[in-house]
């Protein structure tokens, strides 16, 4: 018992690991929430592109001896504005605009850093992060930016959700789609920037997409999905760090692999939707058809004038008013 406790507590006794844990939890939560909207809007490619295209900003800040977060932030804002602008063109799709800036920006970063002496080492620390080198100042900046991102998203959650679900309706409600898109791109850029140090340019995409995808498999409601994604992100971070600490694996890779494993588990075993669970339920159903949970397909065939479900199955569960 004490050995398990020791096993758990040992990494926590080192300052650099404490910093790492706080950083990865922050990143997991923020990327989980932002990632919820990224996956729902199908912006994974956009996220990946932003992560790569802000690379030159990071390098320039590094070369000038400034905090890399500042450089990344400036680059992120410029890139998201540029994607927005090029995407407005009649002849080019948004995807194309993203592709152009993605590759161009990344190449610029590589070109800049290859002129430096410690090229290979610097490059790899940018690409994969240096989670064990998170300073107190980095943590404070990450925390402040991250809380800001979460607060703004909480404030505009209804609008962001509405725009993700039904753009035409959102526009008919008088929402300025362009402004909200830019706001979201900015929040996304900030989330990516504060994740760079912990998981690096390449793997930040996984923190945005994977926990949110896992969460989506587990719920059909937006707020719950955001919470679950934050939880999955932070959880993968913590478990991944332990594995990295004891297994001597790269921390970013370890965190992402845990997130991927959680996704696989949800994909296979999620109640009601998992590949294995559904098979199993079907087998049980054939053995005991009378135990069938409601079968939506059958009820959709029923004429609408009649109650599609037996009385007690749908609206009662949350105490909502039902028809007599």
């Amino acid at each position, binding site marked *: 018992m004490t050995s398990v406790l020791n096993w758990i507590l040992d990494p926590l006794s080192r300052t650099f690991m404490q910093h790492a844990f706080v950083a990865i939890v922050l990143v997991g939560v923020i990327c989980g929430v932002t990632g919820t909207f990224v996956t729902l809007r199908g912006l994974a490619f956009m996220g990946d592109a932003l992560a790569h295209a802000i690379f030159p900003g990071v390098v320039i800040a590094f070369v000038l001896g400034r905090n890399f977060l500042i450089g990344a932030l400036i680059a992120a804002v410029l890139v998201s504005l540029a994607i927005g602008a090029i995407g407005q063109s009649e002849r080019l799709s948004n995807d194309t605009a993203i592709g152009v800036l993605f590759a161009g920006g990344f190449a610029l970063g590589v070109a800049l850093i290859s002129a430096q002496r410690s090229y290979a080492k610097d490059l790899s620390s940018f690409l994969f992060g240096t989670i064990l080198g998170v300073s107190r100042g980095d943590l404070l900046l990450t925390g402040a930016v991250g809380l800001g991102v979460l607060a703004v998203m909480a404030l505009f959650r209804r609008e962001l959700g509405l725009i*993700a*679900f*039904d*753009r035409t*309706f959102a526009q*008919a409600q*008088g929402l300025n789609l362009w402004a909200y898109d830019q706001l979201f791109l900015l929040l996304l850029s900030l989330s990516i920037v504060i994740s760079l140090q912990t998981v690096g340019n390449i793997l930040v995409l996984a923190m945005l997409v994977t926990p949110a995808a896992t969460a989506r498999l587990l719920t059909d*409601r937006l707020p719950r999905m955001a919470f679950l994604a934050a939880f999955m992100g932070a959880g993968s971070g913590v478990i991944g760090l332990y594995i990295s600490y004891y297994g001597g694996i790269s921390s970013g890779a370890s965190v992402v692999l845990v997130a991927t494993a959680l996704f696989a588990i949800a994909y296979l075993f999620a109640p009601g939707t998992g590949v294995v669970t559904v098979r199993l339920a079907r087998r049980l159903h054939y053995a005991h058809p009378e135990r069938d949970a409601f079968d939506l397909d059958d009820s959709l065939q029923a004429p*609408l004038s009649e109650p599609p479900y037996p009385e007690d199955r749908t609206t009662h569960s*949350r105490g909502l008013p039902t028809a007599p």
Partner: protein
Amino acid sequence: MKQAGKDAVSASNTTGEFTSAARLEATGVSVHFGSRSALEGITAAFGPAETVSLLGPNGAGKSTLLKVLAGMLPPSHGEVLLDGAPVRKPAPGVVYVPQRTGVDWTFPVNVLDVALMGRAGSRSRLEPLSKQDRADAMEALERVGMHRFAEVQIGQLSGGQQQRVFLARALLQSGKVYLLDEPFAGVDVPTQDLLIDLFSGLRREGRTIIYATHDLAQAAKCSDRILLINRRVMAEGHPQEVMTATNLRATFGGQAILVPVEAEIARGAGGSTT
């Protein structure tokens, strides 16, 4: 719906009493997409407690006109006025239900969530939706016969059922003017009847309903006024006055469609006068 004509008369007599009444006007509205013009000098007015259908061939500009009236598309020339004030962006009292909803069907929302979106616009950012909003949403869902699906994820419904849910959302917006783009497309007969009932209910409350449709007979039967459109207003007025062979030919071109359609109109118009 058999009493459509009668309702219209009584409603227009009591116009002054409606709190949910508005007057929507288009004055010389033209819309150009690049060098192509979709609408040319449309002038039309829509009053309270009135159901108006827009008829015209594919590409006639019906959807475009509805978008302009909704304040979602600025006209190249002319103006839209709501109770005399120019409309430059979507106004709260005007509800627009598009032809095709570009909705993400896999989105994690259930039927009740979607209906409640009709209320989101009238709530401030920090104000949560209340119990009353939820009760209203359930009532709107009941009006469209979808209350038993309240907790079902939106993508798991049939197309017609999804359309009913979007109607419930529109009802919850409680607009003064309803703009519906082909609400009758692709729905079964019970749903059509439901729509007709909803329309007459809304009109009884003094609201204006403007909808695009391709069903001439149905439009003749269920609307107080018809606008025949083909880039311009080709004809306008009471169904029986408007639906003449000359007007229809001018609007729709070719003779092919006219024979069966006229027969149908004759039947439809006959039905509505009783």
